């Protein structure tokens, strides 16, 4: 808990956040009586609740994260480094982070806080995380909400590739008052296949096989489908006043943090 991470939720805090119309049952102590006398309408003053909200980072460790490119462009490695970067920035801001790996279910996480000198245990924890399992967002969401009922900032670093879909699970988390920060990772080959010809594609998670002939038209349509999928993730985030960033893994992590993520105000 704590740090400088500003909350977007209204509540009983000290700092003014916004006005809204008075509804029956609201606390009369929060009515802006000056505005009522001038405008003859009752407005309710909203205050920012406790500014330091819990930050929980859901790190996708499913097998699909390790499929495709290897090395620095591997999604899993990229996600780990990105998670480590977030944690480091959070520790510098004296935030408290809880890193929660997940795939088919929520795994045991690691809580860290108290300054940059606490980064080492978290780094060692992230080194132990290995990709395994099949993604099941819905199950993970239920488990998460059960274990962490207190609303907070939920950062999800994932490729969001779930055969049963992830939108419903994300919406589920948001409906419980959590603020969503969705960071979608993809390798360049995930979005834009380069090769043409006869392929025997094997799904990294389900081992399902698909023998197809790929040409330029098929690749173009594939990219369109992928962009539509990304757009749906983005829609879920924005619809719930959350934040979204899509990161190809061929962009270096530091460039992504200080470029894409800061410009899109995913991080401030």
């Amino acid at each position, binding site marked *: 808990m704590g740090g400088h991470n500003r909350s977007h939720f209204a509540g009983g805090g000290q700092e003014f956040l916004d006005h809204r119309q008075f509804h029956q049952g609201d606390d009369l102590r929060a009515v802006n009586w000056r505005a009522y006398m001038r405008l003859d309408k009752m407005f309710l003053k909203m205050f920012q609740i406790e500014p330091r909200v819990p930050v929980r980072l859901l790190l996708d460790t499913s097998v699909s994260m390790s499929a*495709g490119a290897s090395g620095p462009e591997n999604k899993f490695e990229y996600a780990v480094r990105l998670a480590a970067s977030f944690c480091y920035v959070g520790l510098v801001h004296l935030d408290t982070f809880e890193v929660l790996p997940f795939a088919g279910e929520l795994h045991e996480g690691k809580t860290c806080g108290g300054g940059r000198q606490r980064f080492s245990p978290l780094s060692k924890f992230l080194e132990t995380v290995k990709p395994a399992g099949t993604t099941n967002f819905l199950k993970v969401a239920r488990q998460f909400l059960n274990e962490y009922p207190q609303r907070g900032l939920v950062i999800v670093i994932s490729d969001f590739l779930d055969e049963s879909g992830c939108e419903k699970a994300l919406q589920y988390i948001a409906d419980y008052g959590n603020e969503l920060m969705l960071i979608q990772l993809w390798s360049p080959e995930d979005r834009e296949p380069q090769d043409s*010809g*006869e392929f025997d594609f094997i799904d990294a998670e389900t081992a399902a096989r698909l023998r*197809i*002939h790929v040409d330029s038209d098929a690749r173009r*349509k594939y990219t369109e*489908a992928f962009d539509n999928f990304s757009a749906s993730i983005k829609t879920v985030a924005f619809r719930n006043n959350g934040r979204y960033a899509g990161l190809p893994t061929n962009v270096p992590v530091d460039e992504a943090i200080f470029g894409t993520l800061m410009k899109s105000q995913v991080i401030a």
Partner: protein
Amino acid sequence: MEFLNLTLGQFLFVFGSLSALSVALYLLDRTRRRRVVSTLRFWVRQGQPAAVSRRRRIQQPLSLFLQLLGMLLLLLAIAEFQFGGALNKRRDHVLVLDTSAWMGASLPNNSRNTLMDLARANAIGWLRAVPSSDRVLLVRADGLATPATAWESDHRKVARAILESQPGATALNLSQNLEFARGLQSQSGATLGEIVYDGPGRISAREANNMQMPALPAFRVLPVDDAVENSGIRSVGTRRSQTDANTWDVLVRVRNYGVRSHVVNVTLNFGNAPQGNHQLELAPGAEKETSFTVRTQAAGLLEARLYPKDAFAADNHAALELPSQRSLHVTVYSNQPEALRPALASDPRVNAEFKSPQAYSPDNDGLVILDRFRPETRPQGASLWIDPPSDSSPVPIKQRVDKPEGLQWVPDLPLTQGLRARNMQLEAASVFEPATTDTQIAEVAKGPVMIARGNMLVLGFNPFAGAMRYELAAPLLVGNILRWAAPDVFRDVDVSTQSAGAVSSPLAVGFDRKTVQVLNDAGQVLPFNIRDRAVQFFAGDSSRVRVLAGNSERVYSLTLPEMWDVKWNPPASARHGIPAWNDSIRRSRSLWPWLAVLGAALLLAEWILYGSYTTSRIHIVKAPERFAA
């Protein structure tokens, strides 16, 4: 264009099999690339890219082409592919190295080196010019062709055999050696290379007159300059004098082989005692004879020497062993020795001793003649019984016949050689009853009158009685009996020294082919041929050979080297000298290392471009330093 290790059929079979296997594997593996992806949802969801169940299409033709080309190049390297066809084929050469006796002559300007050294140097030079892949067979050529090596790719072995070659004792038989080399080359089965003759080309007149050069498509001559002045002994012949049995007539033949006249001295020694010295002036190419007389009964070594010494010392000295004068001891037991004395005294080789029958002793050496006398104990050696008493004859007597008729000598026997029945008139004779093992020599109408039984000869009549003692048959019969008793003593012996090699020994008129024998020192029979009333045989080295024919014996002491008579001129089509170095370098060029490297490079490139190799696998991942800090 050719393959050294594979035939064209084998090459095509292997390459076809590999190509078919490669294409099959390619169609099975390369046509459909397997790839693990994060999800299939975007392929499936669109539904636009149609799933292909099975398509046999070559998606990476360049990859397949590189593979096939790489394998082709590697296979060509294994097969040792070469351009140039027959020019680059491995060839079989025959090196005919002259090792005749003349090769031992010293060089005119360097007495320490011989013609053989020059020939060896030529041979080594030629061997170095031969491509390393070619095979070489060395033939040492003198009177016979002797292969010194097998077909050798290892030229060091051939060089070793060249250096070990030494001059022989015979003259060069060039046509036979070249024919032998051609036969070896044609049987080798490989591409024919050169037949190389290395030597001065000095041959005998006999070969020059009958020379038939074989057809040699690639004949090379490595000439050896042999401008050497030489005079030498051609032969030394000895024969017992016809007038004095204790004297030897010696004939020495000398020849000048050079191109300048020479005055030479011929000396003769017997048992280290000088026997004579004759000076001869020899014109170029001339041959002269000189005779000596040596009086001796003893055996000993007869040596002929030629002075002054010249470049070829081997023919300046000849030696032969003279045999001792042998004799036959004849003991005659007779009461009338006067009748026998003239017949036995006519031959100096007979040492006759006359005794009375009362002095008989059974211990006698040589021949014992019992004249009408029968001892109590028979002699142990050869014996001649003349008209033994009828009651005590060693062969039973059937009857006694006076003036027998129908006397006949059994023909084709050594004892009856030269005898004719018309020359014989007997006064009386005893007719014997011979045993089955007895040999009948003479017979009359009533039966045999002369019988040979073992080493005993029995006459039923007295050849020195009556009118027969004046007939020619009497001494002939005695002579035959003496030769029968001791053939070695009465054999006519000629001793001569001449060169080794092919020897022709003349035979007397009326010789008997069955009696001809050619023996070496060890008593072994040498193969010979009889042609034009002469025995022809071959002796490859210095030795002593005896030629026996009837009652004559010739002893050849083959201590002289066989010399040449004329110089052979090579045909105009023959190549001369050592081939150029460039030629050998060009022909020894080999492509297989380059083919192997290129093939391996192509396969490596194919693996890098199309195989499982990717550069990302060797990419070094570094932690972002900014965050690690």
